[in-house]
């Protein structure tokens, strides 16, 4: 998988803080896009890249927490690093429960900010990788013929070729032929790997016909 450059989104209505954060993040070699309000951020098309959102809890109109909920509703997950002026425990709890990566209080410490951002990006990268693998797996599975999918189900259920031939009423050689296709198309090196793939695809076992 190629390493695409990560983007850090900053949403803070205060120009001083917004600009300073931008500069700090750039100094860590990351790309920054900064917004003065939640709406601006939502209205802006985002590049497909690992990213995180540095978000001021208190924003005019749509607050940081509102934005977090709005994005979760839209199934648009992005790791969020919250920034708040002073420790506001109920807000912190709500944000963390809703999946915030980090909660930074002012005055901001440079190291904490960058570390949180790196963590968040790493997490996003992982999630994105995970999502990408699953998508690839689904694509491979979809490339199987219906007979090959049937064979795969029986294989991951632990049946022998002879048993499968009996179940499907075909010759054992034909089973072997399909099974070879399945292993090659799915890119599985072993039955155990195919089993894991099947689990990730959420296929159910053919325990008993």
């Amino acid at each position, binding site marked *: 998988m190629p390493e695409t450059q990560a983007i850090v989104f900053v949403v803070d209505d205060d120009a*001083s803080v917004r600009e*300073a954060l931008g*500069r700090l993040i750039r100094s860590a070699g990351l790309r920054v896009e900064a917004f003065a309000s939640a709406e601006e951020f939502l209205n802006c098309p985002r590049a497909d890249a690992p990213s995180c959102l540095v978000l001021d809890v208190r924003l005019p109109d749509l607050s940081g927490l509102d934005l977090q909920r709005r994005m979760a509703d839209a199934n648009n997950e992005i790791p969020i690093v919250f920034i708040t002026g002073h420790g506001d425990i109920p807000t912190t709890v709500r944000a963390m429960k809703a999946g915030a990566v980090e909660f930074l209080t002012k005055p901001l410490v*440079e190291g904490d900010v960058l570390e949180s951002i790196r963590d968040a990006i790493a997490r996003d990268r992982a999630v994105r990788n995970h999502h990408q693998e699953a998508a690839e797996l689904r694509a491979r599975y979809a490339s199987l013929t219906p007979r090959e999918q049937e064979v795969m189900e029986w294989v991951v259920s632990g049946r022998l070729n002879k048993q499968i031939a009996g179940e499907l009423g075909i010759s054992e050689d034909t089973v072997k032929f399909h099974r070879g296709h399945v292993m090659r198309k799915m890119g599985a090196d072993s039955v155990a790997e195919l089993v894991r793939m099947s689990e990730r695809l959420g296929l159910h076992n053919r325990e008993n016909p």
Partner: protein
Amino acid sequence: MSRVRKSFEEIQALQGELRVALDTIPALVSTALPDGSRDFISRRWLEYTGLDPSDGLGWGWTDVIHPDNRAAFVDRWKAALASGQPLEAEVRLRRADGQYRWFLIRAVPLRDEQRTIRKWYGTATDIEDRRQAENALHRREAVLREQASLLDLTHDTVFVRDMHDVINYWNRGAEELYGWKRDEAVGKVTHDLLHTVFPLPLEEITAALLRTGRWEGELVHTKRDGTNVIVASRWSLQKDQSGHPVGTLETNNDITERRQAERVLRRQANLLEQTHDAVFAWEYPRTIVFWNRGAEQLYGFSREEAVGRSSHELLHTEHPTPTSDFEAALELEGEWTGELTQTTRDGRKILVESRHLLMREADDRRLVLETNRDITERKQAEEALRKAQAELAHVARVTTLGEMAASIAHEVDQPLSGVVINANASLRFLTGASPNLDEVRDGLQAIARDGRRASDVIARIRALARRTATEKEPLDLNEVIREVVALAEAEARRTRAKVRTELARSLPRVLGDRVQLQQVVLNLLLNGLDAMTAVVGRPRELVISTQREANDRVGVAVQDSGSGIDPQLAPRIFEAFYSTKRGGMGMGLSISRSIIEQHGGKLWVVPHDGPGTTFHFTV
């Protein structure tokens, strides 16, 4: 023969006697032939004129007639010769010393039995003295005529009465004043006609008049229409040549109005004594000419001590403005009002509210009436009240700032965060393998800017927290409002409200205390934000607007979209300790109103029909 001789001798003797007689009479005598040429002139003729006998005979004598009379006389003389009628003429004749004197010349013809004129006899009588007396008389008559007409012209009332007080002269002024014509008044007894009321018994007045020849006093007369008139009367005794009193000349002046005006003035002067105000009058340069009882009491100087002194020196008067300004104002406007500091006799400094009135007297003298009221205690009380109010306002400000502490801290935190982060970021750009100096420079600029921003916030807070004496200066209310809005920005963000300003362009500057007016605006703004915290489903918007009002005043309106005020409670919200807010002290609006009133303005509320409230004030 001897009889003839005797007769002849007798005649000669008679002639000789006649000559002597002719020469001894004072008149100048001459005889002339029927043709008018002189054949005899007396010695007096020759002596008077200084002529030689030969020059005086014939027609030569006419040279001594004054040139003005000569031609006319010669004509008349010739006419008389022709007609034979006696001649009488007055001419001036030159004396030997060259001076002319008037003479009456008479010439009568002597006729014989045939009625033929044989001779003319002439006399010239010196009438110079008579002429002069006549001239003097004419002149005196002219003067008298003039005087009489002058007496008629004057507005003064003049009449003359004899020793029995019977009027024998009555001028036009008297006709006008009393209403009786001259012929109605002449012959009447003065005091009966005018019902004279005397200030003294008439006998005393008459005695004084006879003793000194004059009397002056005030009389009351009754006019023809029955009304009374007060006159200033001057009597002078008239005497004949031998010094016997023959009458009285009475000159009267109507002073009724003056007396009434004087009575009013006296009453006013009495009133001036009654007032507690110090009232005194001075003439330029500063000399005190009047000093009432109030002034005696206020300053401790008696009238005798004050009158004649310079008021400035006596009272150590201190003007708030240069004396020249004050004098110019007095000169220009005719009056001046203001406050003065003065010192009393016992050295106490007092503050007086003063009013100077410049009065120009008829004779162009200028008099200044100064009325001063002691306002020392009132000022002290006002000052104490003002201090207490300023103190209270200060406490309220500090309390407000305390309530805003969280959002103020945020307001300082923001730029300070910016500073710290920018500094760190700049360091990182500087210390990397290939330093990015553009970023470093931008970072440093941002640091400078944010640092200023933080210190601006602190300066605003400090200004509001300051305990300063009230200082009024010309202010731009828009600027005052912008500063307050900047200060409350964080608070607005905390309450999720928008603060919008609609500020009129080119407002007149108003005289005010910046801090206190900011306090009022801040108070109204925070109240508005507070009123909107419960608002759901509509924008939380607060609008502050300014507008120019009449007379160079400025109006400010603070309008919120909050829950609104019960119109019945609206009047109570300005009372002290009345609060609808939880934790509110209930002083904010009360203090705001007293601040605005101290600025000569008004603060009021207009509840909306729907949600929202608008507070207005004018300064």
